[in-house]
């Protein structure tokens, strides 16, 4: 039975509530959804037991009333688990995964800058990717943010 089915099998048996939403869209791809409360439990299980040792990246999504984040974890033989969790937009608080992946720091800073997420456990450091003089409270990748907001100083100077 193909590798990703077996992973899905293990996951659903370990976590009953995952039964409904674990789906395999194509070979080597599993999409999962987990509430904020049992997110870290699944994450830990995936990384520790199922040996998903490579965090490709973390994608931020603005879904109207909530912000959701997909953790793309890659394991052996190319299987990619996309673990999605969402937090209410009012207080988008996330737990940092730096203890598992030191490389995640840069991805989490990007979430902070572009989505306004608050990541606990993120060490102090340079902001990424926006400039230091970027107006506070403006999160470019949010749907409600329009680039026109700061376009007014675009002056066309001819030669």
């Amino acid at each position, binding site marked *: 039975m193909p590798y990703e089915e077996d992973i899905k099998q293990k996951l659903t048996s370990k976590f009953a509530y995952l039964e409904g939403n674990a789906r395999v*869209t*194509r070979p*080597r*791809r599993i*999409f999962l959804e987990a509430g904020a409360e049992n997110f870290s439990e699944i994450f830990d299980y995936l990384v520790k037991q199922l040996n998903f*040792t*490579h*965090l*490709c*990246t973390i*994608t*931020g*999504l603005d879904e109207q009333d909530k912000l959701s984040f*997909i953790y*793309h974890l*890659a394991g*052996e*033989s*190319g299987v*990619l688990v*996309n673990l999605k969790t969402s937090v209410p937009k009012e207080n988008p608080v996330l737990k940092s995964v730096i203890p598992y*992946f*030191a*490389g*995640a*720091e*840069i*991805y989490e800073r990007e979430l902070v800058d*572009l989505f306004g997420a608050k990541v606990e456990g993120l060490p102090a*450091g*340079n*902001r*990424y*990717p*926006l*400039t230091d003089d970027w107006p506070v409270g403006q999160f*470019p*990748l949010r749907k409600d943010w329009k*680039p026109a907001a700061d376009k007014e100083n675009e002056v066309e100077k001819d030669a």
Partner: protein
Amino acid sequence: MPDTNKFKIPFGPQHPALKEPESFSIALKGEKIMGVDIRLGYNHRGIEKACEERTYIQDLYLIERICGICSHSHSTCFVQAVEEIAAVEVPKRALYIRTLIAELERVHSHLLWLGVAGHEIGFDTLLMYAWRDREVVMDLLALLTGNRVNYGINTIGGVRRDISGEQIEEILKGVGILEERTKYYIEVATQETTIIKRLSGVGVVSYEDALKLDAVGPTARASGVDRDVRRDDPYAVYGELHFDVITDKHCDVYGRTVVRVKELMESYKIIRQCLKQLPDGPIAVKVPRKIPAGEAISRYEAPRGEDVHYVKSNGSEKPERVKVRAPTLANVQAVKHMLKDRFLADMPIVIAAIDPCFSCTDRLISVKGVNSKNKKIITWEALRAYGIDWYRGRGIDFTKISNDLRKRLEGI
């Protein structure tokens, strides 16, 4: 530099490297680098937001211009994700052409890197010859796609140009010449004592660290991490081709050089297989403008490492979200680790070893005495010259082997 006080060198970029230009601020104690603080985002252009305002086809042009050297990687990765959502059956011939261009791009990128690495350590003859040979593959790419860089050969559902018979002859001839030359480069990279002395032990990342820091591509493979998207998660036609993944145990810049130079040989093997097994048939299939709702993530083995694209569609003709993670973003974390208590002289080659883009070589570094107020500015070239002299003082000098490399390569 007086040994007592620590120097803080902001290593600001005049030129961006890859998607996110890197600016390193190095705390120096005399010659030793104590700490590195990385500041990214200098040329953040807001591509991901722009993608949400354009249709899929328009996005293709945008995605292709993320990075100057591996434009085909980004466009293939994006196109694969969209095709996956739209559940489009891409014709086999198109996949073969895509793989062919991908490997040609890897050859051109690795040759470019080989030249830059030679330049960083003061072995300029290698730069001259690697770039001279690179023109062979650039001409091939221009022949096939009409442009030296940013080929624009991908479209959603296939490729835009077909390959004719004599173009195949041309490629085989070109690959023959390149293979001959690469043999010399492998010989130089693996047996030349000065290179070995200059590069080994520099920018070390152990196997565990490479895993923990999520390094990708040749940087990871040189530390023994056996991870290659072409084999683990085969896309396009890599499933039907056989090639082996080069790994190396040196865990340092020398290992990365060996991995990249040997990967060139693998690429030639793949190119030949593609040309031999090229099936007939259409090169593209019509895809509706509106992509059904769904999400997909696609991975691609770019010359610098694993490139990840996540696309989410909402049924309209514009994607709802496009997420791109360039390979260097993953490797940049490892640089901080590699530079720890190395010498300042090693900095250019260590940073060049993760193969950020060519133009970062004109960066400006300002050396600031922590307590003395005057700031000493040295440019990237100066740092390179400093590194070369520093090592020449320790008996590593390339002038001799430059001549015999020139003699041998003159023959071909």
